[in-house]
């Protein structure tokens, strides 16, 4: 009885609540009002729950078509590409901590051409960098791309290109209008921009391959699915694992449907045969991809097993924003993503995208393994779900006026855009041009076989640009100390302790310090006869003489 009274109130105030919510985000982002992030996040969840009565009333949906869709998509692509090039307008240093690591591995593979350098690779490269991406960068290198062009041009291109497969997959499952909303949300997603600013090269390539794999699976093009799924497996393990879980759930769904249809009288033989055919081909795909990936995985299986078992024993989030931070970055479309998920659940449309959201959401919410890294594909599926929510619950609704629905959609875009603009504005390279120049100086003015000691914050840059062997705490193959010993070395002023620490490393040995995190490394110990300051412009470099 009570529920019956509340229901019309919720229904009539739902759109108004959505508009108040979006206006609150906008005003907060513009600094006009001050609202706690948590209040808005709770508001988002309440909004999602209050969408259930309106969703229950949706009977039929129209298939939304968009004119000049290719032109619109190209415009979105150009906008996304331009946004990703913006941080390079006044700065030539690549973004992200991983830039040096990628530069090093890309060059490692390119230098070993015409062969693939499997046996000679250090363990950290084997465990963290599957071959897939570097086979592609090798191809591009052969046709004239160098590592910096790949990082500064090809990678932003990949990030912007993501909107195309996203559009195609969303349209395949839903309609053109939902797909275009998804593409715009992706272009305005601060999380996707954050992925770009951290230079998660493999992730972005894997997202494209996963979307294409989902498209092929939906179209039942199994040969093509095997190709894209194999490339995905060769590129990025977490995304490969995610797609495999989706595929296994899909297989389970098919088997369940088959069992149900066998128990049900009146189901025709043809639909059973279709289900059996789908099951056979899905199993065949899993087997074929397993066989095709053997050359990629067999040589590294022990390393991958160690990574996986340590992740299972002590689940770690991986290096990315946590879910609380993500909730704020996606706040403008988060309630609509949940509404989209509820819409699919209520309509019992348990398609591949629903499975993706369920699997990915479970990994992130229940903190299973590398849960923070799984926020990247989660954001993508939230974007699709957000587009579903916005299109079917608002734009398509007969109860909501078209103008109000369009205004709401625009508010979502503007709010997302403001959050994105703030991110773009605050995005800086981890080191300055002067500090990078110092690293380049090392490559030109030190011996070929020299060792470079650096803090872990500077180490990727030194590795990528100095082209020398790098010793850093917990990184790469030359570190011979435990964390405590490193801490002691950083802290000490005593020359004897310093000499003892450095005695295990071969010569010539240089120490690079960018000047960042000055409180970690005490430079006083280097003011002695055992060290010669060879560079001091933006960063300092010492040569060890004793």
């Amino acid at each position, binding site marked *: 009885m009570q529920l019956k009274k509340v229901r019309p109130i919720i229904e009539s105030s739902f759109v108004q609540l959505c508009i108040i919510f979006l206006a609150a985000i906008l005003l907060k982002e513009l600094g006009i009002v001050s609202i706690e992030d948590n209040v808005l996040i709770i508001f988002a969840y309440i909004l999602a729950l209050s969408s259930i009565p309106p969703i229950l009333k949706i009977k039929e949906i129209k298939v939304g078509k968009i004119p000049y*869709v*290719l032109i619109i*998509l190209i415009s979105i692509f150009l906008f996304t590409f331009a946004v990703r090039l913006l941080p390079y307008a006044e700065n030539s240093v690549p973004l992200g901590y991983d830039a040096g690591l990628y530069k090093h591995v890309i060059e490692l593979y390119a230098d070993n*051409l*015409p*062969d*693939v350098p499997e046996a000679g690779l250090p363990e950290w490269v084997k465990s963290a960098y599957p*071959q*897939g991406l570097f*086979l*592609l960068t*090798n*191809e*591009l290198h*052969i*046709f*004239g*791309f160098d590592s910096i*062009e790949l990082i500064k041009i*090809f990678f932003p291109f990949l990030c912007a*290109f993501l909107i*195309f*497969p996203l*559009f*195609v997959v969303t349209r395949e499952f839903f309609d053109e209008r939902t797909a275009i909303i998804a593409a715009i949300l992706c272009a305005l997603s601060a999380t996707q921009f954050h992925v770009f600013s951290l230079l998660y090269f493999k992730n972005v*390539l894997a997202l*494209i*391959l996963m979307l*294409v794999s989902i*498209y092929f699976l939906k179209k039942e*093009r199994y*040969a*093509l699915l095997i*190709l*894209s799924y*194999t*490339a995905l497996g*060769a590129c990025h393990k977490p995304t490969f694992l995610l797609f495999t879980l989706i595929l296994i759930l899909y297989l389970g769904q098919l088997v369940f449907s088959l069992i149900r249809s066998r128990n049900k009288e009146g189901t025709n033989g043809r639909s059973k045969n279709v289900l059996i055919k789908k099951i056979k081909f899905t199993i065949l795909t899993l087997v074929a991809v397993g066989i095709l990936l053997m*050359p990629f995985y067999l040589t590294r299986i022990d390393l991958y097993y160690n990574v996986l078992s340590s992740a299972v024993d002590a689940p770690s989030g991986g290096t990315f924003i946590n879910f609380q931070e993500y909730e704020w970055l996606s706040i403008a479309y988060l309630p609509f993503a949940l509404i989209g998920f509820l819409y699919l659940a209520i309509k019992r449309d348990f398609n591949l995208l629903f499975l993706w959201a369920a699997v990915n959401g479970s990994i992130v919410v229940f903190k299973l393994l590398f849960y923070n890294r799984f926020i990247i594909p989660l954001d993508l599926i939230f974007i699709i779900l957000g587009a579903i929510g916005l299109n079917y619950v608002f734009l398509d609704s007969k109860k909501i006026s078209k103008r109000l629905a369009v205004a709401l959609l625009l508010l979502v875009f503007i709010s997302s855009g403001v959050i994105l603009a703030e991110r773009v504005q605050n995005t800086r390279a981890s080191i300055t041009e002067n500090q990078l120049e110092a690293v380049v100086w090392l490559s030109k003015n030190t011996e070929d076989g020299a060792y470079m000691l650096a803090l872990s914050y500077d180490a990727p840059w030194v590795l990528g640009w100095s082209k020398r062997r790098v010793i850093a705490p917990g990184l790469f193959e030359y570190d011979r100390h435990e964390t405590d010993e490193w801490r002691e070395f950083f802290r000490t002023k005593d020359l004897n302790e310093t000499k003892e620490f450095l005695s295990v490393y071969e010569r010539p040995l240089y120490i690079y310090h960018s000047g960042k995190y000055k409180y970690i490394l005490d430079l006083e110990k280097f003011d002695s006869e055992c060290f010669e300051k060879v560079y001091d412009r933006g960063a300092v470099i010492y040569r060890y003489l004793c």
Partner: protein
Amino acid sequence: MVAEILGTILGAIIVLFVPGCALTFVLFKGGEIDNIERIVMSFALSIASVPLILFYLSWGFGIKINLINSLVVIFLIVLFSLIVWVKKRGIIHWRFKYN
């Protein structure tokens, strides 16, 4: 400088678009996919097929990954696609009949 940039753009098109685009004409029936899908499939099939083929050739047969072999693989994909496409459309068959 300009020639270098043009060369790089051409290289990118050859690696990232041409083989996949050729394959889409063979693997999808006429009208099955539109221009947007063709763009996506061209890119995805290119980045998936050429590196994987070259890797398996290198791993299985010791074939070197260099410019010539890359061009040969891309050329063979395009040629194979062209033959199948021409055969599918019945152009060769029609010519014989005409003669």
